[in-house]
């Protein structure tokens, strides 16, 4: 039995819980909250085969969409975070040949970049939606500002998560990075 989907599901569940639980308190304290899902998706994209990594990013992003209502909590849009995280995963896949995969700073740096990619995609999609289905109180500049700040904090989350994730990579069923040569 391939443990990869189970491990990703469990870690995704924990990271989504952390995202939702910390979003409120930290947003009020730091103006933005870190994402734990983005470093997880980046880590998977860093280690796993391309297709499973992209599926993981897509599904984790979809879960983020469902847990991030907009417009005063009255509207849930499926897709923006999913597509954002998918492109972020694609970015990490393209970059992983150029980085030292087992270094904690790699995950931190790629988490920041992945978070920025996701933010840009999400804001672009919502900005496009504003033209025909406006959401009251939504501002592209404010979302970009918060997203960029969140990306920086996500880098710290990625650094902390790398301590736990990197040693776990063989247990998770992901191929050890040193065995994967492209």
């Amino acid at each position: 039995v391939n443990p990869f989907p189970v491990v990703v599901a469990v870690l995704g569940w924990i990271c989504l819980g952390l995202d939702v639980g910390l979003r409120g308190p930290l947003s009020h304290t730091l103006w933005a909250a870190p994402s734990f899902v983005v470093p997880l998706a980046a880590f998977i994209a860093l280690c796993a085969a391309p297709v499973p990594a992209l599926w993981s990013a897509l599904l984790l992003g979809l879960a983020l969409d469902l847990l991030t209502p907009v417009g005063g909590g009255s509207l849930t849009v499926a897709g923006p975070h999913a597509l954002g995280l998918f492109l972020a995963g694609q970015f990490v896949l393209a970059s992983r040949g150029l980085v030292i995969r087992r270094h904690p700073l790699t995950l931190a740096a790629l988490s920041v970049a992945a978070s920025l990619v996701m933010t840009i995609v999400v804001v672009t999609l919502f900005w496009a939606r504003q033209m025909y289905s406006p959401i009251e109180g939504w501002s592209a500049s404010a979302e970009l500002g918060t997203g960029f700040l969140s990306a920086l904090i996500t880098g710290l989350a990625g650094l902390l998560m790398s301590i736990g994730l990197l040693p776990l990579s063989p247990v998770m069923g992901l191929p050890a990075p040193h065995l994967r040569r492209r």
Partner: protein
Amino acid sequence: MAHHPHHQTSRGALIVGVIVLLVLAVLPARLGTWVNHLGGAASMLVAPVASPIYRIARVVSPAPSSPSEEVAVLRDEIERWKALYLKAIVDKEEAERKFEALSKGAYYTEPPQAQLLRPVIGADRDGLMVRAGSRDNVDTNCVATTVGVQIVGRVSRAQPRLCWVRLITEHGAGQIGGLIMTSESVRGPSCLLSPVAGGKLQGVVSTGAGIAPPAKGQVVRLADEKWPRSSQMLVVGVVDVVQTDSTGRSIVTVKPTLDLDRLGEVVIRVSPREPDTDKASTDGRGP
């Protein structure tokens, strides 16, 4: 390099998945309402992790822009209101008679159908996520308060097991009518308050002949026909700042007695739906 057929199928499914999500992402809001139900289910799914994390973070994280002096003042306020609340319980009958006598006229209070003390399991910029939903008869007509009498906000959306409470201090919550109490039992001028920065409300006071002007520290109670009757006369906050504009009108800044962003539990007051409030509440916004 030749690709395995299984990989090609998986890659094809991935492309289809991306296209489906792209369509969903650009779907107009009126066609995507069913996604809201999935959102509620997802929130319930992550609640076992999110809820304890939220509680810990709420305790550990320092209050935003709250110097220790302000925290001390707020704690004093809490104690003062607790004392008033306990005093009101002890002198219940006398206070009820007194309150009824004072309430004759424009406003009267009736008890809500039910009061549900429920934990806050999360929060975002849109408000508090509370573990009470349409299964408990919670709908957009319901008002959330603290365990005492401080109004927290109004339910903006209800799922079967969850609801979202939009705080009265949030931008977009709309205006709220208040009555400034010149003393514990004497009504003063009315005011129409709007949310401003810093979790406060601000509005112009309607003063008239024989009505004392507002003063700092006075209690502001809800007096707004667009809110359920059972919520009238609950506490909106206390007058924090009184200013006078160029035309001589008083402008008050009202601060809730508690930091509404940081509540661990709230009381959802389930009220019978009133015809005149339906319109105001169905759009998920305050009055």
